[in-house]
């Protein structure tokens, strides 16, 4: 066990993966000497050389496309997209190539590419630096999408993602990069555990589902709700696609109430799928419609307004009150 920040855990995980498997290589903008704008690859080029930690031309489609070619050749490229809002130039390569090649080639070509995307807001940045594009990828068959919420998961899940033979979109909650925690780098995770949700706190009254940056906020909210007499079960989704419905369903059938929170816009966000699926799976156990506490249906706002857009403890508790039918319903909604 060592005490590491979230970003150190990622760095260590990359290093360990590269040491374990010399087919693992890193690609991205400014990841070499600079170590990436968030320093996640700090020191790796120095130790592994320029063929394994590759500063690329400034072209995201090129990066992902070239990574696909390298994977064709037997490499396991780990791509860094500098910020969430810059993944879209690579969208075609991700959605039409990376996601579909295994199916297209009838299973002959595996593309074990990991795409790391620092995502989400809360860091006071200008446009395109605070987005939450995970729903686009989760809707794309052929991709797996995961997001760690703490240093231990950052370490373990990244190693698992790199070892996975399918392409994995790895969403890193950038505003949690400085979070510190105990990390066991010797921990050998159970097979498949990358795709298991994590019940972080047990509770009777309501299932609160979060991932990535909002897991901490969700835990804080659950603690605060104790005072208000609500016993909340907090689940860290970890895997956004596939969703671990087994764990979720068990919880919701017990609590009868669900609240889902994420930073992305509400319409068509991950919360929509979770709400719909959990309603399908648990309808007869539900006391209230699943509640979503998310970003608004707006472009990510300027820094001085982002605290309004981002779900926080108060907005989550407000949602809890609605789920408990303690608050009046929203405009347009039933009780």
């Amino acid at each position: 066990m060592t005490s590491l920040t979230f970003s150190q855990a990622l760095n260590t995980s990359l290093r360990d993966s590269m040491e374990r498997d010399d087919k693992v290589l890193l690609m991205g903008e400014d990841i070499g000497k600079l170590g990436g704008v968030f320093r996640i690859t700090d020191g790796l080029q120095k130790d592994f050389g320029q063929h394994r930690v590759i500063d690329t031309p400034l072209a995201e489609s090129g990066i992902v496309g070239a990574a696909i070619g390298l994977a064709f050749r037997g490499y396991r490229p780990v791509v860094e997209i500098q910020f969430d809002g810059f993944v879209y130039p690579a969208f075609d390569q991700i959605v039409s190539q990376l996601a579909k090649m295994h199916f297209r080639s009838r299973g002959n070509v595996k593309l074990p590419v990991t795409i790391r995307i620092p995502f989400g807001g809360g860091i006071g940045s200008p446009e395109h630096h605070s987005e939450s594009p995970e729903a686009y990828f989760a809707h794309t068959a052929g991709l797996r999408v995961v997001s760690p919420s703490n240093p231990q998961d950052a370490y373990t899940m990244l190693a698992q993602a790199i070892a996975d033979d399918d392409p994995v979109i790895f969403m890193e909650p950038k505003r949690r990069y400085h979070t510190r925690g105990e990390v066991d780098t010797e921990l050998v995770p159970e097979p498949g555990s990358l795709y298991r949700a994590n019940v972080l706190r047990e509770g009777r009254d309501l299932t609160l589902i979060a991932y990535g940056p909002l897991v901490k906020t969700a835990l804080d909210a659950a603690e605060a709700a104790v005072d208000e007499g609500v016993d909340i079960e907090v689940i860290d989704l970890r895997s956004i696609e596939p969703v671990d419905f087994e764990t979720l369903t068990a919880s919701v059938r017990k609590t009868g109430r669900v609240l889902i929170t994420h930073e992305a816009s509400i319409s068509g966000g991950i919360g929509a799928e979770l709400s719909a699926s959990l309603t399908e799976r648990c309808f007869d156990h539900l006391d209230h419609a699943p509640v979503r506490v998310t970003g608004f249906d707006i472009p990510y706002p300027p820094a001085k307004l982002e605290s309004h857009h981002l779900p926080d403890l108060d907005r989550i508790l407000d949602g809890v009150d609605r789920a408990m039918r303690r608050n009046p319903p929203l405009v347009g909604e039933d009780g």
Partner: protein
Amino acid sequence: MRLRLAGALRPTGMPRLFPQSMQRMLTVSLTFDSPAPEETENYLQVVAPDGTRRPCPELDEWVKDLDVPALEKLYIDMACIRRLDMEGTALQRQGELGLWAPLLGQEASQIGSGRALEHDDFIFPSYREHGVAYCRGIDPHDLLRMWRGAAPSGWNPYEVNMANQQIVIGAQTLHAAGYAMGLKFDGSQAAAIAYFGDGATSQGDVSEAMVFAASYQAPVVFFCQNNHWAISEPVSTQTTGYIADRAAGFGLATWRVDGNDVIAVMAATRAALAHVRTGSGPAFIEAVTYRMGAHTTADDPTRYRDALELEEWAAKDPLDRIAAHLGGLGADLEELKQRTEKATNDMAAGLREAITSMPDPEVEDLFTNVYSHPHPRLDEQRENYANYLSGFAQEAEAAK
């Protein structure tokens, strides 16, 4: 006559040998204004349309070894893929295939380049390279599977060192660049080659592929078949100059060759491969050819192009020219004709057999290979759908 020999072996860093001429202002005239032959022939050529051998200092050394038997082989190859193409079109007409993309007219470009490759070289094709696939010995079943709508694609890329067909224009060029980076990291002597069309050169991906290839000096050959059309759009919609010039601007060694001259294409491809294998960086070949058929069997080219233009290009036929050339060399054309007939008939029979023996896909194929290991939700969907289908079977049973 303004003939300028263009695109000779020009390692990056050397001056370009020819200027960017032939501007066409699209917004003024979008009709294809057939340039005078003097202008189109601004490329490297070894055998003229009438079969005469032309001296070509830039290419001659690369095809010194081609004796009569070798040329006859190339001829038969071209005849075989022409037959393959005719059969593809016929099978589509008969409803056996959902679609077919004819290669008619591009035989020299595909055979000349395909036969220049070594087994270890890895090919990233578009959708029209049946001729290159043929060079790889790809099984007719595997060749037709996708066109029949029976599978998303055909062959196992690793068995033949050729990726599956790529439909998204230009996307494969980046895969080739990345693969070539890998070759370089591995210290391999093999090369990657990407095939694409004139239309593809407009796609950002193709430019980015050249950027990556140049930056890492990766051993990749970009092989552009400029067949003058991207569906209904003439090449002048994509560029005001020569395509090869664009590649030169990215720092690639470039060749602009007569794409209907199988010897010239083979020579240029060998030269380009030799160039990239030495670690001197990527190369680009513009093979100037012509799509004699429709874009696909779903296309009606009479809506947008002139019969005259077709005639002009028919006179540059890749097969006739090599036959005439062989005649000039004293080859036994009668015997060649017989061998060709047998080979093409075998080819046709193989294709027909492949179609009649190809099983329809299983419902199970829907869910297989989406992922390489289990995905619980998809597994549920598979199970639910199987239950749903078996409900019908039970009803049918009950109704008996």
